[in-house]
């Protein structure tokens, strides 16, 4: 393993460097954008490229434009410098399952097979993770609900605590069929859905996929999922290849998502989007 670790170390250094440089530019770009927003506030800042069928926002043009401007930004919440390949490596994110358990759809993300174990390519994981964090932050930024899901008994309390502390939602318990697809009768109200589901593990048991993935896909709810080498990623909107069993890895993901959500909420307040009279932290 020593050669490999050395190699990884080298790669990690590279990525840290690039990250730092990227971050600087991103920050400067963000500043420019904000200034632009301030200057052109009220005017219609066209954000989309071509779709006619998706008209411009209606919910208060001012705020919409701010949000859309933020969307234009590559890294509006500065999430790219949060994590490096080295961090991922140290959190054992690269460790996949036994090669015999490999899911076909995951093979592009697998670096190689080392002594019968799949090694996940962290070079690919990192951008996907950053992308997912960005999407998550944007949804929170716009006031969306995020539901964190996991069926890992070992890390369950940490997931729930994170969700509670950032004022979002969590469901780490046995999934009753139809929580999304039959919500109106289960909750006996007009159904409420989260705007994003984050799966910190996509498996319910070792044999079955989490039912929430299919349900959220059916109900047009975007999903982010950490997929291990033995998982199917086809029903997820955003997938992050990575180890989903090791507590260290889960704690890393939790730290990242916590940061993303907190930053997004802070930004939301800062940008004046948060007008809701109801405090929905813990009640």
């Amino acid at each position, binding site marked *: 393993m020593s050669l490999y670790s050395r190699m990884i170390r080298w790669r990690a250094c590279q990525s840290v460097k690039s990250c730092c440089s990227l971050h600087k530019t991103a920050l400067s770009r963000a500043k420019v954008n904000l200034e632009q927003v301030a200057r052109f506030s009220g005017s219609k800042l066209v954000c989309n490229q071509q779709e006619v069928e998706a008209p411009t926002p209606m*919910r*208060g043009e001012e705020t919409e434009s701010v949000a859309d401007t933020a969307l234009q930004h590559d890294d509006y919440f500065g999430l790219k410098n949060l994590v490096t390949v080295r961090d991922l490596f140290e959190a054992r994110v690269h460790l996949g399952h036994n090669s015999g358990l490999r899911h076909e759809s995951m093979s592009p993300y697998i670096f190689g097979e080392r002594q019968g174990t799949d090694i996940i390519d962290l070079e690919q994981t990192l951008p996907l993770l950053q992308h997912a964090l960005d999407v998550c932050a944007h949804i929170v930024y716009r*006031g969306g*609900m995020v*539901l964190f899901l996991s069926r890992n008994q070992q890390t*369950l*309390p940490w997931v*729930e*605590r994170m*969700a*509670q502390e950032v*004022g*979002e*939602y*969590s*469901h780490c*318990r046995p999934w*009753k069929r139809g*929580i999304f697809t039959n919500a109106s009768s*289960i*909750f*006996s*109200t*007009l*159904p*409420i859905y*989260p705007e994003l589901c984050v799966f910190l593990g996509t498996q319910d048991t070792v044999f079955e996929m989490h039912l929430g993935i299919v349900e959220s896909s059916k109900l047009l709810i975007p999903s982010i999922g950490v997929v291990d080498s033995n998982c199917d990623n086809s029903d997820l909107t955003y997938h992050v290849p990575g180890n989903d069993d090791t507590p260290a890895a889960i704690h890393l993901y939790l730290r990242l998502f916590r940061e993303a959500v907190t930053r997004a909420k802070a930004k939301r307040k800062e940008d004046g989007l948060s*007008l*809701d*009279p*109801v405090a*929905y932290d*813990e*009640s």
Partner: protein
Amino acid sequence: MASLSPWTRYSLCRSLRYCRSSASSVLFSRDLLRNQNGIAGSGSSRDNCTEAPSPSSSDGKQKASSGKAVTISRAMRAYMERAKAHDDMMKAEVADYEIGKRHLANIMGEDPDSFTQDDVNRAIEYLLPSGLFEKRARPMMKDPYEIFPKKKAAQFGLDGRPYHWLYFTTSPNYYALLYDIAWKMEDLKAEEDRLAEEKDGKPDREKESSDFTLARSEWITHQRLKDLLVENVPEKEYRHFLVLMERLAAHPLAYKMEEFIATYREPIAMQSQTLEVPQIEVDSDGRSFATASGKRKKCAATVRVFKPGSGKVVINGEDLQYFSNFVYRESLLFPLSLTGLVGEVDIEAEVQAQGGPTAQAGAIRLAVSRAVTAFVDESIREDLRLAGMLTEDPRTKERKKPGQEKARKKFTWKKR
């Protein structure tokens, strides 16, 4: 019924529509509904719905204090619409009820203004006599609020965000409880590690934990847990809860979580403490005695137990010969042998001769046990209670059934 006019009959029947079963779902107040429609101003509603401000505009938007428009979620809008519809319906029903009540008062020839609910009940029983056994199945006329099930309050705010962070689990309170237990457990583990490091693996906790015990209490019942959580908790989940709590309580440092554990435990009442111990009196010879009475089946006995004594037993002026069968003598012996007073007390019993010897012996035994408690200490009293000596036997003769020879015995029946 023939004397009623068609109109009164109609209104009566209309009023009687309230005879629906009042299947109550969870806590929900009508204060909220009234609040939102400005009926009652006092509105001290119990549930979390008071947090929601009363929306007055129907277009789903409201001016917040900051002057910006606040979007009301569709779910909340739908809820509010339904709440309003329900309240309108209830208003109509209440009006119907009031009219029906006045009609009823007129039919009965009483003053409509001072016609109370009791009068209504009486009138309905008189006008529509029913032979149905089940009381709830009989005709009734009641306040609609007593008959219609209460409505569930919204679990989410105006923006459509649920209040509870475990809302999507469908049992937020239950799972929040499990979450609490899990974290308490984690805290204890951390604490244990810390102590082990500090004291070299030997935390001295005897001093602190001495008064922490589960012996005097038991876990709350399933129903109690349901009431506490205001949620339906299936049996399986309740057992899961018990397992987790047992695990927490079994931790060596569980005494640190005593307060938390105590909220889910109910004390076992020491019944012998609430037991009435007869007074010790002194007779003219200077002997102390206690009097008690007991019952079994139809038989009642009054007993005086003298101490010190020589084991003399007098029952209705006879000695123990009164019971020729040893079984009955043995039943008298047991409380004495349990308390170690055989041959040390004298017993004088007066028992009604009605009933069989079993009933008489049982009545005397109960009375003797009760009287003997005056002469023994607390622990023996508890032993007596545990042995069932201080509990009245509630069984009585089973009634004879028609078509049968006795309570259970059937007539002889031969096909041919």
